[in-house]
């Protein structure tokens, strides 16, 4: 009986995968230049849009909440908390989206390499999956504990941002070193938290 179920599972599973293949929309063949631009864009979004020190401090700082609590009635505090929660959740969603972008970049480039290592790719796939799951867990945490249940995010994320961006620079360096160098010079002192 178990054997029958296994065979049925494989057969029906294959038919489902084929159905997905038939339904798949034709993904554009990404050129090297486009990959570079997208990866660079993901990096810049992390630097400028999602991880600037002042933005993160503002979202997760308790000072604003204390001020509203002291100055306004309870309804306003309640509304304020709801809004902050919404913003922090939106922020986690965007970070998740950028992780996905970096993942797409890695996959888009690594598939072309003859030296591609099976264990390394499996480990990386696992890491990406775990990270994306962690983002989801963080969303649950923020939902359950509210925006100030994640107070230490500011310092940790700021430090992590520096490492993320430095590593990404290194990862992108081999793609187009002269272009990267000009990007690096142009992006200095742009107000990012790194």
């Amino acid at each position: 009986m178990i054997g029958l179920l296994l065979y049925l599972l494989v057969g029906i599973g294959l038919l489902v995968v084929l159905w997905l293949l038939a339904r798949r929309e034709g993904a554009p063949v990404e050129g090297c230049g486009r990959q570079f631009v997208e990866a660079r864009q993901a990096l810049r979004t992390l630097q400028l849009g999602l991880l600037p020190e002042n933005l993160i401090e503002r979202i997760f700082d308790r000072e604003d909440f204390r001020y509203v609590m002291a100055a306004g009635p309870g309804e306003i505090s309640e509304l304020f908390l709801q809004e902050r929660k919404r913003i922090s959740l939106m922020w986690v969603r965007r970070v998740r989206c950028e992780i996905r972008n970096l993942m797409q970049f890695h996959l888009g480039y690594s598939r072309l390499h003859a030296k591609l290592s099976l264990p390394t790719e499996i480990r990386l796939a696992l890491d990406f999956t775990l990270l994306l799951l962690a983002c989801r867990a963080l969303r649950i945490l923020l939902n359950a504990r509210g925006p100030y249940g994640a107070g230490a995010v500011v310092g940790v994320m700021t430090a992590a941002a520096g490492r993320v961006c430095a590593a990404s620079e290194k990862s992108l360096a081999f793609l187009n070193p002269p272009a990267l160098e000009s990007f690096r010079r142009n992006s200095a002192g742009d107000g990012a938290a790194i």
Partner: protein
Amino acid sequence: MLSLLLWLAGMMFEFLLLVRSVQTKTFTKYFYFYAYILVVFTVSAALFIGRSLSSPFYDAWYWPTQFATLAMGCGVVLEIVRQALAAYPGAERFARRASCAVFAVTFCYVEWHVVRRTEWSTAAATVELERDLRVIEALVLATVLAIVFYYRIELGRNVTGMIVGFGAYVGVSLTTLALRSFVGPRFDTAWALLQSASFVFGAAVWTVALWSYSPNPAPPPTERNDAGYDALVHGTRAQLQSVRSSLRGVARS
């Protein structure tokens, strides 16, 4: 009557495919695939003529020829792996190793079952062999498709058609063979019809998809040196480590 119609329809599609392969000169491009179609067409035509002449001929030759087409079917899977990932050496290597692992594990599992069995019958053994080979083909196809989805590899119409047609045939065969072994001989009529119908469906898909030559879109020309991959892996790992530690910090807070 219905089975006869399906048989004739299958042969018609096979013949069309062979004619078009000569006209469009795709025979050399998808050699194993067309070799499979040629063998299946020859076997079908010979059995069809043989059956109308004498029934014992059909009975004597059905299982040996079935085995030959089964073996040729593995060539189609190899052709699909080769064609789908030809332009992506890394992904192709990945698929080849994963497929070998799938094959080895399934083969060992089947051998273990054969060794443990006490009774032996040619028809039953061939049906079981077909089911086990279909499992291998299905798992290899699923592995290739997983890689195609994961690395977002774009496939041309020819290869997509090959995969959909053959995959549908393998999927339906596997499901019906499993049900046959469970339900028993009373499922035989339905089994034969479903298997023939799935093959005709596959052949129709192949005929449409391979009507003209449509190769896979070429990947972008890019640097493929080994140092590049090492740098990429190093960079990706470092990024993952950073994001992971930041998320851990948030979770602890």
